[in-house]
């Protein structure tokens, strides 16, 4: 039985892909099912968008295999980034199929083995895809079982993958054994493709979306979603069995170390020569400004690269302003109208003009970076027939594939990207591109051998993309009672949409460029402040004219919103202080959102919050004795509500800020996995406090200078405070993004706590001792 669906397999193209897909799957006998038309949404997309994908996403076999032993293999283009989404996907599939989650294994991120592409960051849409596929399959299997058992489907129940009714039973595995379950999966969207000048230079990064509304288990009846199912990948990581992307070896593979230019804008004058007596197997590979040493022996590649680095001469370049001139440089950039604006400009400006009182402030933050523990690594095999296979840890396999194909002026079909675990990337590979992959592809092409490129930490901290510095101005109009009635913010920053691979840039190969712009990333939590205007101004990378592209801006955990929420929540704290109001009570006065109100109250209670205004009565900005303070901030992001409450101790004369306790609250709709949410909240606090207290990318006029862990400091275990978590789950608001966001609620709460302790507003992070002492003395 087949039914024509929105993405019918009847067209010549789909038939071809179908056949290819079946060959890959080894399917023999086809049992066809149709998705009932009542589940289907009307879709109007064409089939051209599916041309660049290798598995036909309309075939169930591309997504799922049910094996005769009743185990299940599910395929998704998304990947695990370390926050446990492979477990959440497994839970969602188990929920809809009525199987135990332990029976499910996932294939993730390989472009030739997964159907849908898409962001790893956007796990909610990825989870929705596999959940719907599982739900469609469940319906089809029930129907099939009804026929086999000769019992109406409505009289059947499924427990642990076994369908039963009227004393008969059959397992899923038995139902499909020797058959190919051909079920048409309705999809919309497109696979990533290069689009120069368009947004980040690649479109289709969302990947495909499974459409329609198959019957799914109501959230208040879930048995697997909402439990603390363990993340499946953890045991192998703990015992050393996991194959990481840094572990890939191929026959004949060369190890490479890159020799990066002396500055971001240097070109080579002369490249040193390999001393063949000392390094008999090493050779230099060069293309444009891309220079590398390769050898079958990794240590020989490293040693030879060090010698050649010392003997290589580069031109000078000094196109950066230097860290000390950063704010001035951003302020001096000539801007036109904001490229992105949100709110009612006329109403907001008129309300501001009429306000009985106004307060305003400017905030800023230097560049920070993702700073994974494991530097970029990749293996590429460019073969004589033009086929390319790349082993990566990128969180955007299809986007990376599109960029590599663009660089090589070939078609995406020639490129296969295989994904493996690696160090967390925290957003820098979300758009594909940034990484060692293009280095490896270029070197493999030039040497005609598989090449593994391992960046060093220093190289990673100097040459990978960064989360851009920013400055912002914000103004609030207050009513006679000090409540905020209007707000206007202006955010200025180099753009965060430039993930171009540095290898391709240095080699002078084609790179699909992005469109620099501004981005308003906040989600508005204060519905009582209706007159608001948020402007975001973009500008090019610092040093953009250099061959390397300069300081390439990229997104980083809770992108845009992390920065803009610091501004918004900073001003809310300042307005509360001006009104002599308790900062939590002040927030409650500006919202009617019950979810926010409930979480604020619950978190305040857990933190034993004392209702009073800031600063505290005995606040001090001098002295050698510590003084304590507390501060709060909130955020709404991706259907999740967040509250952060910081308690600090500061020694005014030394500027040493110690966070002594942090209480974090989260309500992400229905909690998918309570234990993982708690772990992600605690770890997110560590990252957020690190940013609040320590992190800053420094640079001189030529290069980044914060290139190791002594110069780019992050929070250590000893500096971690007591962390309390508060979680609220609800079944009536779907799922929210619980794994990201914790980091963003730390800096505003810590800055507010410093104000509470000292009476001085910190409008910049990081709150390093030197900055804090200067601030308190000023």
């Amino acid at each position, binding site marked *: 039985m087949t039914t024509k669906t929105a993405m019918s397999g009847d067209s010549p193209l789909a038939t071809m892909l179908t056949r290819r897909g079946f060959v890959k799957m080894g399917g023999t006998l086809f049992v066809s099912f149709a998705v009932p038309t009542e589940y289907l949404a009307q879709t109007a997309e064409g089939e051209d968008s599916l041309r660049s994908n290798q598995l036909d996403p309309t075939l169930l076999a591309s997504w799922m295999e049910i094996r005769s032993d009743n185990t299940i293999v599910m395929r998704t283009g998304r990947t695990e980034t370390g926050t446990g989404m492979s477990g959440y996907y497994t839970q969602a599939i188990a929920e809809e199929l009525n199987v135990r989650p332990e029976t499910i294994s996932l294939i993730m991120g390989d472009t030739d083995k997964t159907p849908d592409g898409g962001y790893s960051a956007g796990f909610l849409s990825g989870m929705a895809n596999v959940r719907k596929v599982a739900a469609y399959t469940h319906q089809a299997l029930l129907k099939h079982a009804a026929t086999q058992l000769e019992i109406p489907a409505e009289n059947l129940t499924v427990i642990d993958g076994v369908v039963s009714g009227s004393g008969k039973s059959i397992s899923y595995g038995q139902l499909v054994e020797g058959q190919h379950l051909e079920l048409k999966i309705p999809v919309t969207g497109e696979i990533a493709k290069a689009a120069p000048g368009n947004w980040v230079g690649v479109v289709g990064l969302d990947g495909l979306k499974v459409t329609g509304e198959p019957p799914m288990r109501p959230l208040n009846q879930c048995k697997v979603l909402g439990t603390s199912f363990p993340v499946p990948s953890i045991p192998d990581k703990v015992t050393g069995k996991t194959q990481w992307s840094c572990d890939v070896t191929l026959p004949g593979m060369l190890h490479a170390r890159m020799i990066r230019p002396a500055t971001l804008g240097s070109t080579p004058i002369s490249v040193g020569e390999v001393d063949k007596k000392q390094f008999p197997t090493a050779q230099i590979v060069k293309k444009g400004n891309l220079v590398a040493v390769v050898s079958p022996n990794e240590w020989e590649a490293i040693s030879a690269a060090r010698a050649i680095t010392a003997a290589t001469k580069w031109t000078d370049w000094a196109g950066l302003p230097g860290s000390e001139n950063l704010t001035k440089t951003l302020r001096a950039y000539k801007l036109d109208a904001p490229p992105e604006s949100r709110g009612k400009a006329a109403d907001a400006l008129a309300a501001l003009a009429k306000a009985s009182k106004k307060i305003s402030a400017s905030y800023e933050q230097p560049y920070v970076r993702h700073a994974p523990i494991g530097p970029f690594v990749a293996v590429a095999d460019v073969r004589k027939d033009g086929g390319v296979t790349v082993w990566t840890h990128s969180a955007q396999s299809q986007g990376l594939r599109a960029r590599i194909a663009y660089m090589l002026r070939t078609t995406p079909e020639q490129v296969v990207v295989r994904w493996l675990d690696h160090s967390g990337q925290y957003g820098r590979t979300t758009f594909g591109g940034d990484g060692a992959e293009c280095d490896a592809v270029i070197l493999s092409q030039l040497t005609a051998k598989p090449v593994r490129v391992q960046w060093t930490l220093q190289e990673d901290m100097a040459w990978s993309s960064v989360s851009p510095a920013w400055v912002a101005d914000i103004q609030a109009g207050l009513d006679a009672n000090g409540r905020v009635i209007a707000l206007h913010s202006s955010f200025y920053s180099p753009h965060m949409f430039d993930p171009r691979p540095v290898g391709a840039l240095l080699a002078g190969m084609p790179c699909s460029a992005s469109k620099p712009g501004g981005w308003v990333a906040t989600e508005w939590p204060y519905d009582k402040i209706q007159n608001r205007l948020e402007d975001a101004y973009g500008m090019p990378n610092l040093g953009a004219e250099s061959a390397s592209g300069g300081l390439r801006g990229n997104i980083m955990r809770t992108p845009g919103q992390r920065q803009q929420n610091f501004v918004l929540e900073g001003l809310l704290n300042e307005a509360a202080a001006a009104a002599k109001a308790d900062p939590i009570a002040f927030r409650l006065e500006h919202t009617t959102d019950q979810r926010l109100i409930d979480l604020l109250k619950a978190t305040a209670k857990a933190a034993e919050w004392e209702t009073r205004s800031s600063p505290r009565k005995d606040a001090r900005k001098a002295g050698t004795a510590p003084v304590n303070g507390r501060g709060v901030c909130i955020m709404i992001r991706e259907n999740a509500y967040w509250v952060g409450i910081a308690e600090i101790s500061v020694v005014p004369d030394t500027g040493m800020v110690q966070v002594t306790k942090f209480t974090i609250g989260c309500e992400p709709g229905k909690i998918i996995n309570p234990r993982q949410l708690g772990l992600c909240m605690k770890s997110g606090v560590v*990252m957020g406090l690190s940013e609040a207290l320590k992190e800053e990318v420094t640079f001189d006029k030529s290069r980044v200078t914060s290139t190791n862990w002594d110069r780019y400091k992050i929070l250590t275990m000893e500096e971690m405070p007591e*962390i309390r978590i508060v979680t609220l789950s609800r079944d009536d608001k779907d799922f929210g993004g619980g794994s990201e966001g914790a980091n963003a609620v730390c800096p505003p709460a810590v800055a507010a706590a410093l104000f509470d302790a000292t009476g001085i507003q910190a409008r910049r992070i990081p709150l390093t001792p030197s900055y804090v002492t200067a601030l308190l003395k000023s």
Partner: protein
Amino acid sequence: MTNELTLSVNGAKQIVSAAPETPLLFVLRNDLKLTGPRLGCGMAQCGSCSVLLDGEEVRTCVTPVSFAVGKQVTTIEGLPAVWAAKKGLSADEAAKTLHPVQQAWIDEQVPQCGYCQSGMMIAAAQLLEKNPNPTVAQIKDAFTNTPPSPHLCRCGTYAAIIDAVQRAAKAMKA
């Protein structure tokens, strides 16, 4: 120049051919295919490459392979055998048993990306050998102030690590 060196790794004798100054990390990973230790900073600043050398944690990214000759090298792959030997487990039992630190890392769901966690477990195993009942303050101190550098986790799993060390401590006393 390349030398033939005899190593003892996870209880087994291994003969490798390497320049004596080659960091132990590359010999373990590339020659012996023990990929538990991973390259982080390459300059003893993070701890992701740590192994035990005669029971003491070393950073293999800066430890010449020649320094390991005549000493016992233990990677995370070898931790279960260390525990089995200590408890006098039979071969059958040993095959099914993890080191309590590894079991605690699973039970507490410590790893997020997991890249740094081999080094964290090595540091935990060493700490518990010296201090079977560490307080939270002592755990923080050990992971932060033991030379040559703090053990860094960018995912921020420190709280879970502390819980896991305390869980392992209980299991090892049982």
